[in-house]
């Protein structure tokens, strides 16, 4: 039978999507990441937390090749990020969606233009195809009625949902969320977290989420990790991490964010 001759793609055999090894990063004389090693499996949701300035955003930017690391290695889906050619770097970025704390929507474009600009200009989709796909995504994040609005006309929660749709439009296999709800009022947080939850469920999307939303983290994340001074302090399955932290540093941190 021909079926047992089906080749098995090597990438499928490797369950690890992101492989980070002993990464060091500094800004001038300031060491921001001091030897970070993380494996993230396909379909996994990893929650990163840590005090302000511990290097969470920097780590995400390094994974996306937006920063150059001093030493160590980062591979996304078998592609080496450090030293990547512009073409390879673009491929890596195309397979990775990045959602920022401050949304970073393009203010001069409407909602739908924000979502279609990359698919049309980079992937060469026709306007019609891109618009159809964008409308589907807007439906999914509950923003269908705001397609023609400019970002300044949207609330924070709405902006963030558009930003998520914009990232999803490139059909990434991995999403990086950098404090997606921390710039939002409490009432708006839930609508955004709900969207993130659905994205994970519907696409079985691999995600790294920087967040201090404990409820969200416990219900969605497979693993959680505390970063402090550019090092991993503790790493455990999410529920265990939040309910029975081992390290004193973690306990202290969790107490601090629960008192917020």
């Amino acid at each position, binding site marked *: 039978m021909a079926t047992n001759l089906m080749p098995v793609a090597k990438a499928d055999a490797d369950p690890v999507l992101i492989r980070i090894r002993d990464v060091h990063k500094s800004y001038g004389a300031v060491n921001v990441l001091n030897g970070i090693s993380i494996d993230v499996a396909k379909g996994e949701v990893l929650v990163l937390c840590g005090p302000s300035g511990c290097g969470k955003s920097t780590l995400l930017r390094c994974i996306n090749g937006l920063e150059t690391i001093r030493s160590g290695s980062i591979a996304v889906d078998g592609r080496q990020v450090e030293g990547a050619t512009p073409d390879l770097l673009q491929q890596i*970025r195309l397979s990775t969606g990045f959602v920022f704390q401050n949304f970073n929507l393009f203010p001069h474009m409407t909602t739908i233009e924000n979502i279609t600009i990359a698919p049309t200009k980079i992937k060469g989709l026709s306007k019609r195809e891109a618009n159809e796909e964008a409308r589907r995504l807007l439906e999914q994040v509950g923003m269908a009625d705001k397609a023609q609005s400019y970002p300044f006309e949207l609330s924070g929660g709405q902006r963030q949902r558009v930003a998520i749709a914009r990232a999803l439009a490139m059909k990434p296999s991995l999403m990086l969320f950098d404090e997606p709800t921390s710039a939002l009022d409490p009432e708006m947080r839930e609508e955004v977290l709900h969207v993130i939850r659905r994205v994970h469920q519907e696409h079985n999307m691999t995600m790294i989420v920087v967040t201090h939303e404990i409820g969200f983290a416990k219900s969605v994340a497979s693993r959680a990790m505390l970063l402090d001074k550019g090092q991993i302090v503790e790493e455990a399955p999410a529920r265990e991490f939040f309910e029975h932290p081992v390290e004193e540093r973690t306990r202290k941190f969790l107490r601090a964010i629960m008192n917020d």
Partner: protein
Amino acid sequence: MNYTFQFGVLADYGPYLAGGLWYAWWTSFPSIIFTTILGVLLAAMSMSQRWLLRGVSVVFVDLFRTLPVVVLLIWIHYVMPILTGFSFSPTVSSVIALSLNGAALACEAFRGGLEAIPSTQAQAAQSLGFSRWQVMRYITLPQAFFATLPSLTNVHITVIKNVTVTVLIAVPEVMFRAQELTVQFFRPLEFYTGAAFLYVGLIWGYALIMRTLERLQKWQPI
């Protein structure tokens, strides 16, 4: 003061004087276009990662914003032909001089606008797969353009005002005609006052067009 005004001469020769506006416009309009295109290009170059492009931009700007327009104009029209055997009509020489000077000013205006765009915009675009050039083309320049419009209008107005120096190489615009008529009729006050009004009118008209353009911006920065 015992000068008697005779604005009547303007009734006879005003149309001829005003005809100079045609030349003023056709000298300033191409200069404004070149100024803007060159200015955007130089500003984009000044933000490049390649030192050669940055260097060209810096040298260009420093050279042409320091060179007095009169010197530049005379040099292009009278000196360059001696050196190269190659000469331009007065209007073309003027357009070149005004454009080079204007581009240096416009570059600075655009650069200010570009630098005011937060770097997070470029980061968001890069994370979507945009190359540095595409980031400039689709994200930063369009935003900077509207932010720069008011100062760009100032640059364009400077370019229009600089048209008056082309009187030196006999472009028959308003100032040249005012001079011509003055020599003929000994009525400097009337003709030069007429010229002043014509230039003010031209520039106000232009500023009005630019303000309409500013109103086309449907979005607001956030």
